[in-house]
Each structure stands twice: as C-alpha cells, then as structure tokens.
C-alpha cells in the first residue's frame, strides 16, 4: 500500500553509503536488511509508546530513492520524533532501555549491524534527523555534565517519568525526572522554564540522556526591573563607578 501522494510521509528510515563510492540505490539496496531495520524500529517505537500508555500507529509504506528510505505515516509526529530519538539512544547504549525492551534493543541492534560496513542509517521525522549508530564497544569516554538552561517542556509522563523539552540552545531532547518534578513540569507544558539537569552529550554536543534535577518557572513581572533590582543587591559597588570599562580593567588610563 503506498502513502497518499497528497500527504508526505513524516517518518522514514534511511540507508546511505558512507562514502561516495558506496552509493545505495533502490536497485542495489539490501532490501531485506533495510526492511528489517525499518520494521524493527517501528516496532520498538510502538512498544515504547505502549509502555507509556500512548498509542502510536503507522500507516502506509513508501520506498524512496535518493539514498534509500522506507517511509510511513505516524499517527503523531510529535510522539514519533520523541520515540525515534529515544530508540536511537537505547541502541547507542547511552541509556538502558525500559524493562521488557532489552531483547528488542538487541535484535534491532543486530539488524542495524547487519546493514554492513560502509552503510549509514538515519531515522527522520518531519525534518528532524538522527544517525542510528551501534557502537562496537561502549564508549569509553562518557561525560556527564551538570548544567542549567532555558527550555520548554512539551511532554511529561510515563511509568518511568520523562520530560521532553525543546530549547533554543539544545533543540529537542528527553530527560528522566522524578515523579514530583515530572508532575510539576506537566503543569508547565509549553512554558519556558529554567532547568538544572545532569546531561550526557554526544560528540556533536547534542543531549542524548540525562536527568532533571530542578525546574523553576519564570517569574512574573518586568524582567528589566528584576535585573536592575538584582544588580543593586548583588553588586552595589557599580552604582558608584563612573567609568565601567576602566573598573573592569579594560582601560589603564
């Protein structure tokens, strides 16, 4: 069954050659390998969704050229993006998969590995794209970082609570949270908050896993007045400074 020509498919698993000499086309692709990865990926995302009481359906199938893509329409683009992202994280081994999904993780990992050397797999959801990598061994250097940032929670919940965020600085990502923080953020959906979190980033700096330690809603009122008041309290000496640049040490004269 093909997807409606009027509705572009939002979700697709893509296989391409690592080098220009490894071109993958619909005529040369290992069809069984790609279909197995795509089917395994969809199955994994649906199992993740079921585990959290969500329903995520996929309808239609389309084979696209370019590189080679197997595409389908998710019932929710937002959920598909979140679960596609998390699935890639479990396959990379940055986080343990939820209970009950260990064998699926193993099998899907084997399917991705079976695609062979020189092949790259990407998962795409409505303009969002992430490589699917299976490390040969667990990455030896794993840096956890405690940081704070502004982000907007767009979903909170699950048996093992998680919060999905989007931010100007770090794009979209999911973090674990304890039930109390997840509940708090559930009441602050689509509002920017100040988040303190332990995060794990990949080599490109993207947040791949982590845990929310604290989340503070933005205060009401005039932001400029709040910063003026803060500066008066926190650094009152500047009120008596005539030459700011000189006091900062930027001018010697």
């Amino acid at each position: 069954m093909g997807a409606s020509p009027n509705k572009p498919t939002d979700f697709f698993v893509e296989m391409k050659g690592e080098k220009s000499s490894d071109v993958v086309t619909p005529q040369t692709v290992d069809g069984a390998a790609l279909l197995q990865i795509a089917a395994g990926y969809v199955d994994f995302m649906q199992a993740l969704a079921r585990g959290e009481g969500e329903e995520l359906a996929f309808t239609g199938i389309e084979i696209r050229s370019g590189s080679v893509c197997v595409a389908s329409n998710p019932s929710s683009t937002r959920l598909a993006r979140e679960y596609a992202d998390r699935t890639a994280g479990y396959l990379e081994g940055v986080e343990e998969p939820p209970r009950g999904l260990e064998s699926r993780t193993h099998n899907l990992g084997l399917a991705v590995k079976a695609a062979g050397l020189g092949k790259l797999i990407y998962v795409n959801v409505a303009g969002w794209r992430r490589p699917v990598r299976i490390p040969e061994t667990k990455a030896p250097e794993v840096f956890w970082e405690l940081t704070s940032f502004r982000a907007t929670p767009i979903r909170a919940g699950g048996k093992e609570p998680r919060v999905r965020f989007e931010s100007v600085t770090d794009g979209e990502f999911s973090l674990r949270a304890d039930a109390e923080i997840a509940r708090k953020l559930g009441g602050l959906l689509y509002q920017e908050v100040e988040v303190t979190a332990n995060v794990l980033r990949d080599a490109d700096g993207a947040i791949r896993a982590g845990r929310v330690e604290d989340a503070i809603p933005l205060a009401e009122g005039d932001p400029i007045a709040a910063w003026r008041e803060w500066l008066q309290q926190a650094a009152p000496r500047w009120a008596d400074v005539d030459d700011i640049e000189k006091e900062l040490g930027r001018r010697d004269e």
Partner: protein
Amino acid sequence: MNESLPFSAILDSSVVIAAFGGRFEENSRICAEFVSKMRAERRRLWIAAPTLAEINARPFPTPIVEGIAVVSFDRPAALILAEKMPHECVRQFRDEGGAPMSYYKFDSLIVACGLRCKAECLVSLDERQRHRSERAGLKAFHPSELADRQRSLPFNEEPMLKSVP
C-alpha cells in the same frame, strides 16, 4: 517589527552594568534603551555566566524571568572556546591590548557563551572586545548601532520566542 534589532543578543559585562546599574550617564541611557527596545520587540537577551563573576556579584540568585536568561559556560561552550579562542589567541589579545590576562579570559568566555547560545551578536561598549568577537565569528555591535531604528542590518531570520504568551 523593528528591523534594526537582532532576534537575540548576548550582553557584554559593561552593557549589563550600564543597562541595569541605574546611573544616568550617556552609556547607561543607550544601553538601557537598547535593552528596553529588545524586550519591547520580544527579542531574547543572554547574559553569560562568566559576566556574573566578572562583575563580582554577591551570591544573590539571578532573576529567572522571561526573555533575559543566563547562559552557562558548559562543556559545549568550553569546546567552542578551545576551537575559536585557544590560549595562544587569548595571549595574543593580551599582548596587543596590554590589559591584565584575566580581563581577556573573561572576554573570551563571554564570546564563547554567545556562540554557544547561538546569539546573533554580542553587544559591547568596548571596541576591542567587539573586534575580538568578530574575529571569533560572532557579530558585534555598540548598543547605539542597534538602538537606531533608521538603520537596517542584515540579520538572519530566527523564530520568535516560543514562550512568549
């Protein structure tokens, strides 16, 4: 929409002090005007965490308010600093400018934070800091350049803040 304003800007320490410090000399007036215009247009303002150290703030919690946010000097920022302004580069700044090394370190940390939070530009009263920022790949302006509504600057388009109700 004010076409002369960037969609986001990181404030240099001097601008933070001048804009929020409350002295009514010329620079304070220009900086306060720039900040007010940015907020009136719902543009995002960033303050680098190292700025809080540079102005030697006491440990009062910073305001958590809409549109004016502190950007951490985190691991991505450290990588940007290492790539764009390695130590040799900071020493060169010192050799060229003559001020204490700590000042150039703070400046570099602030520019790295600006690049890290994808601010469209740095806003600084310090011409040499603006020059260093440009060298690192972050556009830089004096606040008076941006507060002037008659001037049109070629900023890239960026979505408006999603949090603004």
